[in-house]
């Protein structure tokens, strides 16, 4: 009897909401959504995991704003206060820092799995473009966020990073001044990076994630060509609740790894930045910039009369443009043929990144 009335109340609430929000349509959409099941299905989880880590970034980022002060005089002290005085301040900051790294890691895996499984083929080219845009934004998040504690390492990493933009021909010096908010890395740079980090980039990310998810929803999950051709019968599982629950297991795993890293390897603060002190020994960029940093180090001072650095930056620029245009350059995949060239290009990129990152971390710094 009681159950009956409870059910009636629930039904009434549902009907009330349905008339106003259109719940039935959402339910129909959710029921209709299916996820293909095949031997490469595991890669479907990485995008959602990246999104989950991004949501953690939003939540912890908002919490950090409550204590952070974006000025050269106060930034370091406010983070120190947060770490030492505020209850669980060290935990919130460590989670923010570790989730950032994990997010970039899962994003890279997502990117390369999509590349290798050729999920960018028509009609999903724009989904790929929005994804590459999100990668660029995420790296910009990392670069701007790294400076905010205003410590020695961050200061010089930003010095080097912004100096590199200055080497771009024609617009380099303009970009350098815009990114630094002046000629040098100063408090003005910090304020500017803060604005980018908490306002500009989140707004852009929200927009692009919205687009990205809309396209994923519109086209459904891509089935790799090899699977598509090999089997005629298509196995699927419903998104709600089967895939969603599996997704959440993935999120829980990510959360467990994140919690362990944040608790056992809390992020350090280091020394306060001093613009008039020499650069510390062993200065390194964040790991996801390491392969570029190391490549630039290997280039000779001059190649064919042009500065080596300029060649390197142009090279990475062309590489980025190539990555963006992969769906349009890979004509064979678009025609439904096998495209070994693009598979090997993806593998070569992965190997290049891993090897140079490894070399970057194992070099003897004093030589």
């Amino acid at each position: 009897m009681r159950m009956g009335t409870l059910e009636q109340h629930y039904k009434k609430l549902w009907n009330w909401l349905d008339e106003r929000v259109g719940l039935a349509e959402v339910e129909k959409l959710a029921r209709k959504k299916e996820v293909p099941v095949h031997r490469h299905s595991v890669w479907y989880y990485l995008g959602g995991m990246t999104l989950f880590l991004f949501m953690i970034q939003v939540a912890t980022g908002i919490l950090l704003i409550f204590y952070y002060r974006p000025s050269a005089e106060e930034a370091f002290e406010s983070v120190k206060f947060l770490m030492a005085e505020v209850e669980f301040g060290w935990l919130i900051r460590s989670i923010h820092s570790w989730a950032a790294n994990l997010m970039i890691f899962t994003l890279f895996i997502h990117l390369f799995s999509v590349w290798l499984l050729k999920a960018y083929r028509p009609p999903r080219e724009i989904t790929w473009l929005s994804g590459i845009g999100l990668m660029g934004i995420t790296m910009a998040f990392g670069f701007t966020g790294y400076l905010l504690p205003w410590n020695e390492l961050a200061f010089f990493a930003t010095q080097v990073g912004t100096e590199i933009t200055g080497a771009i021909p024609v617009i380099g010096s303009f970009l350098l001044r815009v990114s630094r908010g002046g000629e040098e890395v100063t408090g003005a740079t910090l304020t500017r990076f803060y604005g980018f980090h908490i306002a500009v980039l989140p707004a852009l990310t929200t927009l692009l994630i919205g687009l990205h998810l809309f396209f994923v929803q519109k086209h459904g999950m891509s089935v790799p060509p090899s699977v598509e051709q090999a089997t005629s019968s298509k196995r699927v599982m419903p998104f709600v609740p089967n895939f969603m629950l599996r997704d959440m297991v993935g999120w829980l795993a990510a959360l467990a790894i994140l919690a362990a890293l944040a608790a056992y390897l809390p992020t350090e603060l280091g020394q306060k930045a001093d613009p008039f002190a020499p650069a510390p020994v062993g200065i390194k960029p964040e790991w996801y910039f390491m392969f570029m940093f190391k490549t630039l180090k290997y280039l000779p001072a001059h190649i064919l009369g042009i500065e080596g650095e300029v060649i390197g930056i142009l090279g990475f620029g062309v590489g980025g443009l190539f990555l963006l245009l992969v769906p349009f350059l890979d004509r064979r995949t678009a025609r439904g043929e096998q495209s070994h060239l693009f598979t090997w290009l993806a593998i070569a990129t992965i190997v290049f990144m891993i090897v140079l990152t490894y070399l970057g971390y194992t070099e003897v710094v004093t030589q």
Partner: protein
Amino acid sequence: MPEEVPSRNPNRRTFINWFLATSAGAFLLAVLYPVSRYLVPPPAGESTAATVTLPIKPVDVKPNSGQIFKFGSRPGILIRTPAGELRAFAASCTHLNCTVQYRSDLSHIWCACHNGHFDLNGKNIAGPPPRPLDQYIVNVRGDEIVVSKSA
């Protein structure tokens, strides 16, 4: 309405529901507790000094005038009565915490926010303030004015 078909294994279902609900609850608590503790600001390192030496020279305070000084993180007001005596009070109005000022035309202390009046002893004499201003002890040591909290 047709009766729900009873689950074939109600114990198992009940256990799983209980297990999921407690796990979700524990997880939620594990997130909400640190966040709520985090949001409560730690006690500020407020200056507890009971004495402050003012950056004002006694000769610079004319009779029938007053000025604001810093007492720790709070404002104080130093006045010289028309009779020539130096006095100091907490400058936070006892009504709603605005900072008071000395009115030479009225020869007493006044709060601009809600028209509160205090006499030269800091006593609330008109307007909404419910209590007198806290009085400090003023000592002149040669060229310096030293203000200290009473007791």
